[in-house]
């Protein structure tokens, strides 16, 4: 009996620990980049069989909490940590952008063919409830030659807290002072108007079913579901069609990214980085090596996985800066 039990324990622990002397890393956080993270960790394991990285997509908030409580080796977030949040951590975290995601403006306006064009200010006013009809002069001004109906605008937004909402509101806060003071940017906000739908499909559902509806969804989602989405005016005054290439280009051109990688891109298309949060000090030498090796791999080989999985890869300048930051992990 005893031998059976101990044999069982040995077998169990072998199952849990994987190969002998392997390095286990545990992370948790954002759900938006979870598909590419899972792929990366799996691929990395195939190439480096001694390193097993486990990732729990529990949400950005959960990832930051887990970092604060020290229950994970690294976190992940769609929203850079605030100074207050960083202050609560024993070890200062470093932000490593991994890929870019973009939001698009999708709408349901029968009778209008071709992509509509919006300037940032107009989008903000629509989501503030100040522009309530589709034939508003401000929308017409951006879309010369398009015959706009007098339909009421129905705003659709995410009801669940999400990085998508943060990216969108962060953009609106930058283009509209009024949005910044009245609403602000977070993973969920107090919407002045509109209907909330859960996840991308919830918003898409409202937009598809409601004539005159307008909402925002992830670029990936809009592409996969063949939804109409708008061109957005960038800081240079040009209308840009959202695509993976234009997102990376906008990120490349953006001068807004802070030295510690916290911050986002003001330019259209509406897009943002998503971050891995890595402690700046790692006591365990083996663990430190595993993490820094992985980061190096992610910035080079890993980036090739971005587009097939519908994320925009990092611009070269950011990759170069991040490589320097890896050395800052002590």
């Amino acid at each position, binding site marked *: 009996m005893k031998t059976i039990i101990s044999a069982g324990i040995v077998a169990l622990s072998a199952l849990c620990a994987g190969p002998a002397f392997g390095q286990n890393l545990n992370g948790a956080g954002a759900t938006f980049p979870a598909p590419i993270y899972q792929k990366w960790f799996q691929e990395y394991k195939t190439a480096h069989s001694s390193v097993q990285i486990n990732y729990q997509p529990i949400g*950005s908030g959960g990832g930051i909490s887990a970092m604060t409580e020290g229950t994970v080796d690294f976190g992940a977030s769609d*929203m850079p940590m605030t100074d207050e*949040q960083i202050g609560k951590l024993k070890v200062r975290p470093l932000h490593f952008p991994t890929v870019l995601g973009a939001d698009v403006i999708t709408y349901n306006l029968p009778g209008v063919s071709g992509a509509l064009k919006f300037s940032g200010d107009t989008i903000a006013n629509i989501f503030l409830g100040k522009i309530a009809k589709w034939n508003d002069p401000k929308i017409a001004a951006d879309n010369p030659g398009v015959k706009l109906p007098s339909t009421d605008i129905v705003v659709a937004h995410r*009801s*669940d*807290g999400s990085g998508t909402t943060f990216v969108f509101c962060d953009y609106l806060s930058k283009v509209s002072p009024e949005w910044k003071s009245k609403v602000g940017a977070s993973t969920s906000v107090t919407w002045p108007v509109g209907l909330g739908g*859960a996840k991308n499909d919830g918003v898409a559902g409202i937009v598809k*079913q*409601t004539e005159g509806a307008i909402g925002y969804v992830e670029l990936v989602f809009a592409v996969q579901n063949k939804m109409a989405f708008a061109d957005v005016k960038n800081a240079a005054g040009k209308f840009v069609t959202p695509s993976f290439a234009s997102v990376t280009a906008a990120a490349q051109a953006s001068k807004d990214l802070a030295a510690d990688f916290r911050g986002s891109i003001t330019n259209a298309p509406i897009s943002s980085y998503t971050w891995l949060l890595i402690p700046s000090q790692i006591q365990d030498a083996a663990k430190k090596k595993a993490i820094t090796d992985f980061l190096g791999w992610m910035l080079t080989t890993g980036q090739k996985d971005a587009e097939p999985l519908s994320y925009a890869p990092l611009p070269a300048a950011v990759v170069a800066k991040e490589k320097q930051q890896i050395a800052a992990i002590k």
Partner: protein
Amino acid sequence: MGTPAAAIRPGSKSVSRLSGGDELARAVTMLFALAVLAVAALLIFELWIHSSPAKEKFGLGFLSSTLWNPVTNEFGALPFIYGTVVTSVLALLIAVPLGVGAAIYLSELAAPRLSSILTFLVELLAAVPSVIFGLLAIFTLVPLMRGYIEPALKKTLGFLPLFTGPAYGVSYLAAGVILAVMTFPFIISVSREALLTVPREQREAALALGATKWESTWQVVVPFARLGILGSVFLGLARALGETMAVTMVIGNNPGIHASLLAPGYTIAAVIANEFAEATSDMYRSALVELGMVLFLLTIVINGLARILIVVTTKKGSARA
């Protein structure tokens, strides 16, 4: 464990062994019962501890504030309490007459064969996961509401503040209707059981006194099964209060208080499910946990009221008898 004194006495050995078994069973089952209590206590403790930052900051004002702003970290529960109560009450208003009526038909009036088939189907319906009902609601109920039901309500009853404003489809009303659909299998199932336990003699006595079939059912059988029927209603109410997925898919998730049933709203369970994963600040999380506690208390209060109602009506019943 066993009492040695009893074991020494000849002849009583088997009795003592039996009573030892009884004690053991008593202890074990008591442990199980206490485990349930312990879970409830732990739940309250955890909710209390994790909601303390919000309790300290907002105090009782949390219950009456209508502000819900994660950006400025200001939180209030009133729109969610309102949405939860309104949708649950709506659901019961629709589901109770339907459910009790159907239960009466199934237990009293339907042919036995038909009754058993229908009962089976009802029980099947009760086992459908709520997210399936949510999908049903999104793809059929919401377009129906927007296209036909809400415009019709506005046209006929639009003079009431209850039926004003634009018809988006997603609304308190849609949530109430889908909750009614979800609760009424429970009401039918439990009410039917209660009606079936009414002794045959009761019906026969009523019929012998010259009552018609309907009079005997409505005036004798239903009052006799009153407790069970009430129980079914509160079971349904409990499901309606705590339902999350199906509600969030059709209620519009708008944290405001609107008199119109056609307006979008929000419920406690829905906001917790929607916002918890991405709640990034401690105060935000704590406010969501406090909302959980409010829902818990709301359920306790409503259950308490239910108990009182049962006690009061039972007394009345016995006095009349």
